[in-house]
């Protein structure tokens, strides 16, 4: 049994299991709520329940007073939902975030192409109207015979709103991607919903931008860069796209053409496992290593957008922080597979990193 939870002021809608705490559900969906003790004693995670019914469970009477309970306050770390709910949490609304209602779409597979040996590019035409989204956001797809949904970033820019393009790498033994690689074909119909996520360009901040994409993690930056250049963003934009070998690289022609056309856009494909004797003239090394050498280890003044597998994000965050770029200026989107769900113990030091 699951319930729907709307988290204000973000307007995010997530699913919460019956016995799951609101805090746990939010953190797992990438929505950071302030918290500390995690078991109802300190009160850091206090939220307001705007609508719906919750059970306070073990909330301490000192951390959550009677008058607060009467006023609809709750501790996210102990509260369990008894119905669909809407809460308001002490999180900051980003001035660049648009409130776009999530919609369900029926799509037709317009094109399936091999981008590399293990990456497919899909173009899905939307049947019931265009999709409004911010570059960087993702959609959830329901695949026939596959339990749950699968999340993929939208690779095309928001101006191209009659379809969504996805770049999908085959996950070894993955059910969802297995279906896409083995069964999906042109003309098939699928259901998807979106747009989701808080990975979008903080345009109002201005300043030079650094995009770091690992593997198919380049899909969001692809959308973001196209969007920015089309809008006439004049500050320097750098994209480092890291893959293993030349055979894993895709999108080179398009990005190279963009770099030729726009003086403020720099495109750096980086290969981590390219044989030393190959003809590759470009950058070698992991994304974070290439970024370090490109910027001389100093990232001050940038805003960085990181998109890719957790190890790559972790390595990049470490490099960026060593180069004095901190949490406020590092925006990440982690590509998690079902196998990445292992829970590592973390301190409450960082909100989103």
């Amino acid at each position, binding site marked *: 049994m699951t319930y729907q939870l709307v988290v204000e002021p973000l307007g995010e809608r997530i699913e919460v299991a019956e016995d799951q705490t609101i805090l746990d559900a939010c953190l797992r969906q990438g929505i950071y709520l302030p918290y500390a003790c995690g078991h109802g004693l300190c009160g*850091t995670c206090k939220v307001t329940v705007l609508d719906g019914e919750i059970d306070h469970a073990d909330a301490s009477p*000192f951390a959550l007073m009677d008058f607060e309970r009467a006023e609809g306050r709750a501790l996210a770390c102990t509260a369990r939902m008894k119905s669909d709910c809407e809460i308001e949490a002490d999180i900051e609304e980003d001035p660049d975030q648009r409130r776009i209602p999530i919609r369900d779409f029926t799509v037709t597979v317009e094109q399936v192409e091999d981008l590399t040996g293990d990456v497919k590019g899909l173009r899905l035409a939307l049947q019931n109207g265009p999709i409004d989204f911010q570059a960087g956001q993702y959609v959830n797809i329901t695949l026939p015979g596959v339990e749950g949904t699968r999340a993929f970033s939208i690779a095309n820019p928001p101006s191209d709103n009659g379809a969504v393009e996805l770049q999908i790498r085959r996950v070894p033994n993955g059910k969802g991607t297995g279906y896409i690689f083995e069964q999906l074909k042109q003309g098939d119909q699928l259901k998807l919903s979106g747009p989701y996520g808080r990975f979008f360009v903080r345009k109002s901040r201005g300043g030079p931008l650094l995009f770091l994409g690992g593997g198919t993690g380049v899909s969001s930056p692809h959308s973001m860069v196209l969007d920015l250049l089309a809008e006439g963003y004049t500050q320097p934009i750098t994209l480092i796209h890291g893959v293993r070998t030349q055979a894993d690289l895709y999108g080179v022609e398009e990005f190279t053409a963009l770099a030729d056309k726009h003086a403020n856009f720099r495109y750096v494909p980086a290969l981590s496992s390219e044989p030393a004797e190959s003809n590759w003239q470009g950058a070698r090394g992991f994304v974070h290593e290439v970024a370090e050498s490109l910027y001389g280890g100093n990232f001050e003044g940038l805003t960085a957008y990181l998109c890719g597998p957790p190890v790559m994000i972790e390595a990049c965050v470490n490099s960026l922080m060593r180069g004095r770029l901190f949490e406020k200026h590092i925006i990440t989107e982690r590509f998690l597979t079902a196998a990445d769900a292992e829970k590592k113990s973390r301190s409450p030091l960082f909100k989103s990193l």
Partner: protein
Amino acid sequence: MSGTKKLGLRQRYEHLTRGLDWETTYQPMDKVFPYDEFEGIKIKDWSAWEDPFRLTMDSYWKFQAEKERKLYAVLDSFAQNNGQTGISDGRYANVLKLFLTGISPEEYQAHRGFAFTGRHLRGAGARVACQMQSIDELRHIQTQIHTISHFNKYFNGIHDFSKMHDRVWYLSVPKSFFDDARTSGPFEFMIAIGFAFEYVLTNLLFVPFMSGAAYNGDMSTVTFGFSAQSDESRHMTLGIEVIKFLLEQHPDNLPIVQKWVDKWFWRGHRLLGIVAMMMDYMLPKKVMSWKEAWDIYFVEAGGALFQDLARYGLKMPKYHEIATAEAEHVSHQNWCTFYQYTHAANFHTWLPDNEHLDWLSEKYPNTFDKYYRPRFEMWGQMAKEGKRFYNNALVQLCQVCQIPMVYTEPGDPNTICFRETQFNGQRYHFCSDGCSDIFKNEPEKYVQAWLPVQQIFQGNCGGATIPEVLDWYGYKFGEDNFDYVGSPDEKLWNEWHADKIKAAS
């Protein structure tokens, strides 16, 4: 959704705090804030301070008032129902003696310290947060005094806790810890108390006492624990914000902060030895061993924290591995010390009985049977023969942590650890490399230490004999000190439970 947007919590809070700040013109800002530069910390932009919580004064009073109502209702009912007779055992009262004389006065010191930083930090956001914490700390000591005062009606040794805190030999350990922090600059105080103490080590201090109270039937202390803990969230988030802010503001801050983290981790570790002893030896009903608590709260939780802090280049505190190794020894070495000096303590001691010894053997398989159990068994044998062992020599103290030099060499539990150094022609002694490093970094500060043993020898503590000194401490000789068995505390407890004792025999 309506068209007009409400102010976010953050904006509302900023208007009510930083919005009321101003640049001084009658006096230059550097004169108004004279202490926030000498430590070498560089702040480029105070406006980058992220308010760790958003609680305004008016709601603060509302919250705290309700907390007080709840707490005092529990205290009243505890008193009316003679809750003191329902604790697990009369020995438990000694835990409260340790708490009220050793810990509660530090709440007051924390209050003073945060009042200082709440005045002297230049950023208004940080000042407001510190002021709020300052008032919290005052509330904590007040509620602790009120809670434990009920026990003072029945049990000995806490009638003059404040004077004892200032004078008693072992209480100079917590006292000097906070004196050190309070005589530091405002940024060091924030790292020492706001970060190292309130964030990294707080769970090792409060959880043992409060769980100990819960396990041993002391509902009043549990309740003040909950009441205080609901404030701790603000203290912890303030500690986190402080360290992030300093590390993000300027690269030159990193080595300074690292040195403070090293120092205050080690000082905190030394201070917590008293909690270790309380957990392993003084709670009639045990919660968990000190070693288990250390593994959960420092090795795991602290490890995760420092793994995240590593992104800033901050390393695990120096000597953390030694501290972790000492978690197998410290409680035993401390209790052995108090057992030998029971005549000079304001609480009672006892030898662990067989069941307790077995528990310790089980919890400390690497060390207890090998090093400590034989000692307790020998002392037990001596006591049986009417030769209860007292140590009448005055101990040598560490110049920094002020703990008697009773700890052993890392890796060699049969050799006492001594370190020494010379400064201005004088020789100074330390219990460890950790304390020795702290001294060498600021010798001018630590040569001024008020060391209880030296003070006795200099004739500043009431006289030359033990009874004279104890009298000066404010002890009632023969009531407050010596073993629990045979004490007035024990007599009273047995009277309360005479029926049960009779029924059992």
